[in-house]
């Protein structure tokens, strides 16, 4: 595996602001979910990605609507970063008819095919096959599209990953395998469920593999760029292991059933100190790359987007019961 060095950014200010905006929007969406879940407004479970926003943002910034992503149960960030409408996802998580899946999927299945979002997934590593197949389609189409699969460190233990590494390498598919290593597979710490390092698993299949600080927005973005360019140029797949952390629990209601803690307060605090959002903000402001007023304006804007999304979701009606019978074929 290779490990990219953190470099000074020479990205234009508007690009930096855009990346900040995406992260902020994801964060606001997720924080609203905490509230709605507590208030009992969400019918089903939600898995939040607070603390991991830089990964989705850094990868998806290089993608167009004609590129594909397959996501996980922790998929809100990917959906938003790939250009999905937060209001449509919000209504979906509320189970309403104006949801992106008309209330049929919920958080774990939010998808927007018009944006190349093949969907969140309730099956760990379930997106791997989908994205690999989409990568095959991209290759057949010959237009330089790429396909990305996000998966967790827990998912890395699933055999389908090695199957995908093998076939993507042999076929030189335009596929990015992006592992968000947040240190836990549900409640199991990394080293109890993964032998060795995930980024080491690509080499044996001749897949270039990179281990990157997933909380470092700029490095993440650069790493993604290289991999996407490689894929678009027909040079094949890349495995990226982004090291990050989830601030929230595995699932929002976990306190109701866990009888003992599975990680220490200190560990959580230590990672919160590395929160990618304030870190990126500091970097932008202290480096005088984007004025803090601009970032404040973004904050205000994303907050209002999420407020509106929540209104939209809450005001959307429930689906018609009989619609349960539609959409099988």
């Amino acid at each position, binding site marked *: 595996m290779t490990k990219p060095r953190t470099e000074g950014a020479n990205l234009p200010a508007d690009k930096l602001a855009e990346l900040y905006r995406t992260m902020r929007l994801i964060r606001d969406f997720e924080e609203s979910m905490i509230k709605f879940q507590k208030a009992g407004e969400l019918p089903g479970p939600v898995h939040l990605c607070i603390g991991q926003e830089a990964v989705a943002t850094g990868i998806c910034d290089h993608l167009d609507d004609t590129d594909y992503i397959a996501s996980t149960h922790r998929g809100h960030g990917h959906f938003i970063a790939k250009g999905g409408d937060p209001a449509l996802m919000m209504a979906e998580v509320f189970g309403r008819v104006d949801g992106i899946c008309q209330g049929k999927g919920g958080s774990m299945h939010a998808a927007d095919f018009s944006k190349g979002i093949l969907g969140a997934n*309730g099956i760990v590593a379930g997106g791997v096959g989908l994205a690999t197949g989409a990568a095959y389609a991209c290759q057949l189409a010959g237009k330089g599209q790429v396909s990305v699969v996000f998966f967790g460190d827990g998912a890395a233990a699933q055999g389908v990953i090695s199957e995908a590494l093998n076939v993507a390498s042999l076929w030189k598919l335009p596929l990015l395998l992006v592992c968000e290593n947040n240190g836990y597979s549900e409640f199991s710490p990394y080293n109890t469920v993964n032998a060795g390092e995930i980024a080491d698993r690509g080499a044996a299949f001749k897949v270039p593999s990179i281990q990157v600080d997933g909380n470092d927005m700029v490095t993440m973005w650069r790493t993604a760029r290289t991999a996407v360019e490689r894929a678009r140029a027909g040079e094949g797949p890349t495995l990226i292991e982004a090291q990050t952390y989830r601030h929230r629990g595995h699932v929002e209601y976990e306190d109701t059933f866990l009888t003992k803690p599975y990680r220490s307060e200190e560990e959580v605090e230590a990672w919160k100190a590395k929160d990618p959002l304030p870190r990126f903000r500091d970097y932008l402001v202290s480096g005088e790359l984007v004025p803090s007023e601009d970032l404040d304006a973004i904050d205000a804007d994303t907050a209002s987007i999420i407020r509106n999304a929540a209104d939209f979701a809450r005001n959307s009606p429930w689906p018609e019961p009989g619609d349960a019978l539609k959409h099988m074929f």
Partner: protein
Amino acid sequence: MARKRLMHAIHEAFVEEMERDERVVIFGEDVEISLFGDTAGLADRFGQMRVRNTPICENVMTGMAAGAAAAGYRPVCHLMFGNFIYTGFDAIANQVSKLRYMTAGQIKLPLVYFAVYGGGRSASAQHSDVMYPALMNLGGIKVAVPGTPADAKGLLKSAIRDDSPVVFLITGGRTGAAGEVPDGEHLVPLGEADIKHEGTDVTLVAMSGMVAPALVAAQELAKEGVSVELVDPRCVVPLDEDAILRSVCKTGRLVIVDEARDMCSAASHISAIAADKAFESLKAPIRRVTVPDVAIPYAPVLEKHILPNKDTIAEAVRAVVNYRKQ
């Protein structure tokens, strides 16, 4: 006797069987911390060699259960949600269901696959399936589907002691109504139905999560003067055909409630058995109250629409009882 929640009854069964036989081991994702409470505290009590967290790897896990069983242990492979049975289906369908037969009975496979399944919790399509029809068609695998805490405890203990592979399925996670559970050793044999409500007008077969609404329906119908016999097979493999047929021959009418999708459901199969072997006695069409052939939706209003409930059950029973040959 004491009232206990289903998961509590399951937990007791695990403790008792692990105490009784040190060859009983449990492995699966996060069984140490325990999502549903069923395996909570077992690792502390029996050690991490016998209660062992696995990585997420259903393919090898399902096969490992077979290998460990073949090598003398009595593993419980905890698969968390029933849908993940599909993820590990290869070893279940291609190895476990056939190994004893292919080797002419050389080997016993005393193993249990454990999972929580079914809908009603807005857990969406990938966490709400009812997968016993696929398992029933494999042959070679017993399938227990208890509907009460007492049956859950008694069947799980029997499943762990059984020398054949058993898939043990329960609904509902930590919730689930409480019920009386006999104290001390309590075994329910695999493949023996239980009459949950006696009656003479119509046989209602219901299992697992459908027993409770079926019982309510039976009680409500009694007030209308309809006498329902509620038969709970408790296992779908082996299926207690005799008990079902006995009841149908008595009542002449049959309704089957099954949370599975309709096509090739347990309900279909039970209906087929009766249409063959109890034809003479039948006074009315056999009705199935099942889930339509769709995935399970997220929104509560949608999910509610497709899952059987006491009213749809009662309605089907009334239709059968009121049926008159045209």
